[in-house]
C-alpha cells in the first residue's frame, strides 16, 4: 500500500499520525496528552520552583540554598535563635513547645514532695498516665507490661516485697543508678550434703515442708561461720535492704522458681542450685543517662503506685 490515499490519517479513527512510515505502510499515531494532564504537569514545575524558594534545595559547592523559611527555637542559654527550616530545628522547636505546654504539670511535680503528688487528683492522673507511657517504653521489656516481672530473671514490682526498698527515694535511686544482684557461689565451700541441709532450712523458712533433721542442721550452718548466710540475709533471714539481700521468710521468690514447681523435691532442688551456683546476674541498667529527672520522678511515682511502700 505504498500509495496510501489516507496519508496523515488512520483509516479508522481519523487521528493524526506523526508522519513516520515504516515498510511503506506502518504508521505511528500521534495522540496528544489531554490538556488537564499537561497543565497539571506544568503546575508541579511551578510548585517545585516555589518549594526551592521556601525550603533548603540546591547544593552549591560546599553549601546549599537554605530557603527563606526559618524556625526559631531557644538555645542552651535560653535565648531565641533562628535557623533555616530543617527537621532537626523543627524537632527542637516542637520539643520545647511540648515542654512549655506540660510545664505547669512538671513544675508542680518537681516542686512537690512525693507524698503530696498523690493527694492532687488532677496531678496524680497526669503523673500516672505519663509514668505508664515511660514505663511501657523503657521498663516493660524486663518487668513486663503490668510490672509483674519474671521469676528467675526480673523482679516483680507489683508485690510489696522490695529487695532494695520500696520507698520513693529508694525507687528513685534504683531507677537512676541501676542495681546489680550478686550472691557468691557456695558450691565449692560447702559439700553437697551441706547445700542440701541449707536448702531444706531455707525452704522451711517460708513454710515449706522440709526434712526437720536436715533443716535443723541447715539452720546451724546458716548461722555458723562456715555458711555465714546470716551475714547478708540477717539473723532473722529477713534480708537487708541496704545490700539488697533477699528476705527468705516470705513466699516471694525471684531466682528459684519455688512457686512454679510442682513437688517439694524440685523446689528444694531449685534453692540448692542458687546456693551452690550463686548469682552474678540481675543487672538493672542505670537510667539517669537515658531519662531526665522529671521522667524518673514520674516513673518513681508510677512504680510506687504499683506496689511500693515498704
Amino acid at each position, binding site marked *: 500500500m505504498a500509495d496510501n490515499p489516507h496519508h496523515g490519517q488512520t483509516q479508522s479513527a481519523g487521528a493524526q499520525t506523526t508522519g513516520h512510515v515504516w515498510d511503506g505502510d506502518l504508521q505511528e499515531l500521534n495522540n496528544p496528552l489531554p490538556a488537564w494532564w499537561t497543565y497539571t504537569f506544568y503546575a508541579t514545575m511551578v510548585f517545585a520552583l516555589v518549594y526551592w524558594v521556601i525550603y533548603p534545595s540546591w*547544593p552549591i559547592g560546599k553549601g546549599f540554598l537554605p530557603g527563606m523559611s526559618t524556625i526559631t*527555637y531557644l538555645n542552651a542559654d535560653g535565648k531565641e535563635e533562628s535557623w533555616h527550616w530543617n527537621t532537626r530545628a523543627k524537632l527542637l522547636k516542637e520539643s520545647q513547645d511540648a515542654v512549655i505546654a506540660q510545664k505547669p504539670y512538671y513544675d508542680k511535680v518537681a516542686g512537690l514532695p512525693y507524698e503530696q503528688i498523690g493527694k492532687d487528683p488532677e496531678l496524680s492522673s497526669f503523673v500516672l498516665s505519663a509514668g505508664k507511657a515511660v514505663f511501657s517504653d523503657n521498663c516493660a521489656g524486663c518487668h513486663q507490661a503490668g510490672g509483674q516481672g*519474671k521469676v528467675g530473671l526480673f523482679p516483680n514490682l507489683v508485690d510489696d516485697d522490695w529487695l532494695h526498698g520500696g520507698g520513693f527515694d529508694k525507687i528513685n535511686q534504683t531507677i537512676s543508678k541501676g542495681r546489680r544482684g550478686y550472691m557468691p557461689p557456695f558450691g565449692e565451700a560447702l559439700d553437697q550434703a551441706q547445700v542440701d541441709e541449707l536448702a531444706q532450712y531455707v525452704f522451711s523458712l517460708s513454710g515449706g515442708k522440709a526434712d526437720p533433721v536436715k533443716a535443723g542442721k541447715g539452720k546451724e550452718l546458716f548461722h555458723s561461720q562456715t555458711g555465714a548466710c546470716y551475714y547478708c540475709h540477717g539473723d532473722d533471714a529477713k534480708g537487708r535492704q541496704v545490700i539488697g539481700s533477699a528476705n527468705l521468710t516470705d513466699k516471694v521468690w525471684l531466682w528459684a522458681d519455688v512457686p512454679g514447681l510442682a513437688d517439694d523435691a524440685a523446689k528444694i532442688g531449685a534453692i540448692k542450685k542458687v546456693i551452690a551456683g550463686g548469682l552474678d546476674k540481675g543487672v538493672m541498667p542505670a537510667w539517669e543517662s537515658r531519662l531526665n529527672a522529671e521522667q524518673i520522678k514520674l516513673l518513681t511515682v508510677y512504680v510506687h503506685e504499683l506496689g511500693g511502700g515498704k
Partner: protein
Amino acid sequence: MFKNFKHEKIETNAGLLLVLTMIAVSIGGLVEIAPLFFLKDTMENVAGVRPYTPLESRGRDIYIREGCYTCHSQMIRPFRDEQLRYGHYSLAAESKYDHPFQWGSKRTGPDLARVGGKYSNEWHVQHLIKPVSVVPESVMPNYLWLQETKLDVSDVGDRMRALRVTGVPYSANGEEYQRNVKQFGEAVAKTLHIPDALSNLVAQAQEGNFDGDRSSVSEMDAMVAYLQVLGTMVDFSKIKPEDLVKFR
C-alpha cells in the same frame, strides 16, 4: 548543533540510546547523593565515635548474617515521637565506621540504634533465645543457636583488615597505632590494633561475660557485646542541641 537533531537518531542507534539513558538515570543520584560527599554540613563533628572492637565487630557480622536488618532499623529519625520512644535522633557521624551501614527502613521490630545499655546482658540472652519469654506479644524468631555456637575467631584480623581498606581506622602498624592513640586515646587505640585482635576479642568476652558463660566465647557473646554498644558512643549531655541543628 541541535538544529539537525532528530529523535529518530536516538531511536535507531542502540549505543547512543544506552549512553543517554544512563545519563538521564544518573541525574537523580548526582543531585541527591553526590553533593552529600562535599557539603560541609553532612557529618557532625562529635566526640566519642570509634570503630567497633574485634568482638563487637564480629557481633555485627552475626547481626548481618542473621538478617536482623530485615526487621530492625538503626536510625532514629528527627521526629518527636521517635525521640520519645527510642532516644536522641541518630547522627550521621555515629555510623561513619559502619560498612555497610544498618540504617534500614523496615521496622517489624523496634529501632535498635540506641538499644545499648537499655537492657541487661541477661535480658538480651534470654530475649535472643526465646523472645516471647520476655515480650509476650513478640513475633521475633528464636535464635537459640547463638548461645550454643562457638564464635569463629580464626579470621577476625582479616575482617578488620578488609574494613581498614574501606577507611575504618584499624591500625596495622606502629605508626597507625600512634595515630589512633592521638585520635581515640590509648585505651581505645589498643582495641583497634589488628595484630592484637584475637587477644583483645577474648579479653573483652571474658571481662564482659555477655552470655553468662566464661568458659568459651560464643556467638551470643559477640552479638550482645555489639547490641550493648549501639548508640552509646556519643555523650549527648555534652552537646548543645542547637549545634546539631546547624548540621542540616
